[in-house]
């Protein structure tokens, strides 16, 4: 057993970026072993819950070795790299100094741990072959990122790859032409979204209820308030009106502002309103904390701010978590109906579709339908997907009904 040299080593570990964050994924290393790093210089980029964070060096020195490779997800606190802070710039790297001793074979890759994520031991190969596992998809927790037998078994137990299905007939005279196309690896964000969406569908009993809303009153109100808010630097959108009405309705229907934990429905005191923000290659849902305290203007300002910072990648991990209800608004492209997927662990999500001028029947004063007329009104659909585990259709309908009423009577009550 060879001994390790006693020198000062700075450890770089996966940081806890956000209260509820438990793990992170290396996106890329900006430094390689042997490089000199200054204190606070960026070593690598990691991503957690779709937010990318740069990790600064804890001190100056020579980057000795990297322990976790890009694409690998590790728990918070996991050692990512080691920096020799006794080294001086210009000194040769330790590996360049001495030739390796022939008797140093005793330590199992303990000293210079190269990337061993592609080294597969005999038993790992055999088990992978038996189960049809693509080893490149398996994370290794062994020395140098090696896939240990237990890693592989855990991967298989968690579902892993689907077993390779042997075709019923192995020979077919028909050889299809290869399809043209292009392969694109999914980004970490895309993978994260994919995981969340599928997980959500597996978790909740999704139903979608749609309510038509006449936004005539809102259109008028917005016209009146827009300029003075703009003077204060706030852009007033229809979304803000919907948000305000939704928040108020949530106060009266706390079940819609809850989460399910086991056999319990946990009602949240605050309404932390998530607003879906489209990004170039994905989406993000920043959260307006305690939305119930904000006015229409406050909501409008918050929505604008979060959307802007979201698109600029400036959100902190805490700002994209902790939501209790989500509103999404893809309408500007003209869609009129959607069945959104609930943002777990919430129990409902509200989709504001496009505002389209339609001919609608406006009721007259008579009970017998006389006096009804056709008018051209700005109409929109509020589509809410909700979790049937927590509530039933009637409450969903009532909830939406209140929002509809509130929006259609905007101004009349004030």
């Amino acid at each position, binding site marked *: 057993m060879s001994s390790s040299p006693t020198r000062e080593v700075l450890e770089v570990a996966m940081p806890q970026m956000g209260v509820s964050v438990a793990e992170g994924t290396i996106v890329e290393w900006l430094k390689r072993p042997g490089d000199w790093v200054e204190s606070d210089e960026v070593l690598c980029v990691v991503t957690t819950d779709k937010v990318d964070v740069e990790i600064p060096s804890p001190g100056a020195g020579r980057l000795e070795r990297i322990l976790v490779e890009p694409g690998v997800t590790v728990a918070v606190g996991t050692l990512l790299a080691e920096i020799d802070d006794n080294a001086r710039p210009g000194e040769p790297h330790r590996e360049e100094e001495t030739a390796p001793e022939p008797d140093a074979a005793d330590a*199992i890759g303990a000293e210079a741990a190269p990337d061993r994520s592609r080294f597969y031991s*005999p*038993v790992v190969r*055999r088990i992978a072959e038996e189960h049809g596992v693509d080893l490149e998809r398996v994370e290794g927790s*062994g020395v140098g990122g090696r896939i240990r037998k*237990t890693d592989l078994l855990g991967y298989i137990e968690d579902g892993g790859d689907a077993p390779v299905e042997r075709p019923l007939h192995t020979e077919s005279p028909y050889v299809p032409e290869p399809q043209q196309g292009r392969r694109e690896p999914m980004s970490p964000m895309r993978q994260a979204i994919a995981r969340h969406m599928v997980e959500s569908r597996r978790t909740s009993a999704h139903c979608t209820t749609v309510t038509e809303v006449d936004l005539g009153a809102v259109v008028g109100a917005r016209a009146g308030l827009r300029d003075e808010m703009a003077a204060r630097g706030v852009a007033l959108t229809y979304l803000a009106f919907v948000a305000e009405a939704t928040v108020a309705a949530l106060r009266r229907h706390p079940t819609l502002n809850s989460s399910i934990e086991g056999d319990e429905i946990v009602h949240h005191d605050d309404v932390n309103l998530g607003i879906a923000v489209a990004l170039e290659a994905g989406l993000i849902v920043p959260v307006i904390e305690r939305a119930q305290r904000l006015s229409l203007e406050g909501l409008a300002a918050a929505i604008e701010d979060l959307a802007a910072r979201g698109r600029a990648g400036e959100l902190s991990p805490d700002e994209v978590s902790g939501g209790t209800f989500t509103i999404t608004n893809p309408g500007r492209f003209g869609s009129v109906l959607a069945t959104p997927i609930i943002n777990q662990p919430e129990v409902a999500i509200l989709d504001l579709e496009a505002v389209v001028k339609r001919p609608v029947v406006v009721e007259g004063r008579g009970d017998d339908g006389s006096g009804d007329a056709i008018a051209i009104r700005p109409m929109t659909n509020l589509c809410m997907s909700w979790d049937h585990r927590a509530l039933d259709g009637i409450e969903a309908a009532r909830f939406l009904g209140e929002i509809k009423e509130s929006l259609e009577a905007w101004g009349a009550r004030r």
Partner: protein
Amino acid sequence: MSPAEATLDDARETEDLTYLEAISSGLREEMRADETVICLGQDIAAFGGAFKVTDGFLEEFGPERVIDAPLAENMILGAATGAAIEGMKPVCEMQFADFIACGFDQLVNVAAKMHYRQGIAVPIVVRLPSGGGFSGGPFHSQNPEAWFLQSPGLKVVAPATAADAKGLLASAIRDPNPVCFLEHKGLYRHVRGEVPAGEHLVPIGEARIAREGGEMTVIAYGSTVQLALEAAEQLDEEIEVLDLRTLAPLDADAIVASVERTGKVLVAHEATRSCGVGAEVAALIGERCFELLDAPVRRLTAPDVPIPFSPPLEQAVLPQLEQMKEACRELIAY
């Protein structure tokens, strides 16, 4: 006359004995049960043996069955062979395992080969107090078991517990072949355990799982079994400990089964490294378990040096608890 299966009936009476007491008690019971069992060795009669294993035997069995031999190991082994050919069951004692070298000719050239060459059985037992750790120096501390593995015709056993010491000694005495019985001196008084009273046989050729685990296996015998168990306790890891108990013939099936469970093996013995039991076990694993391995097979042994006398030197050579723990840690992390 092959040994019966070992049975440890829950309702059977047991005694709490040291390793040494178990050997003594086992030998005494075999001598009571079979009057052809005799003891031959230096200072074993009036003195009761250098380690007191045969204390009181002279009084009970008389000078014809407990024979003080002159300082002549070849004679002891040769006479034992002759007596065994003519119907006795001699149990020879080498005062220290190291002195087998003085009787080696009779052991490997006469006793070991007698049946192969002539069909004549030689039912002798050679008791060999082995092992170091008490400044015995180079000639009182050796673990010479590997010498015997290279001599076909010898069976070799090395118990690690008091119960196994008694059970394997009884089986050795009843086996119609020459059996080398390695009794580690360090275990004499430091290992105690529940030992079944009365007839207790442990089959030769069968290993024992001393501790179950799924992360890695320590394959050990004699003094290193205890070391491995302690290390596993302190590390609180899922470490399996396989006690070989018999070195020749090795329980290959038990070894393979354990490798299948864990995929990682550390072979540990106090004997020196090169061509020791560890080398044989590692080769066997390499041949039969290549596709079961998740890590290279490691060995924790004494290095290839005579055992030194001064305590710091001796401690630097004999496997220690910290080394065992470190080796386990490394292997688990691999």
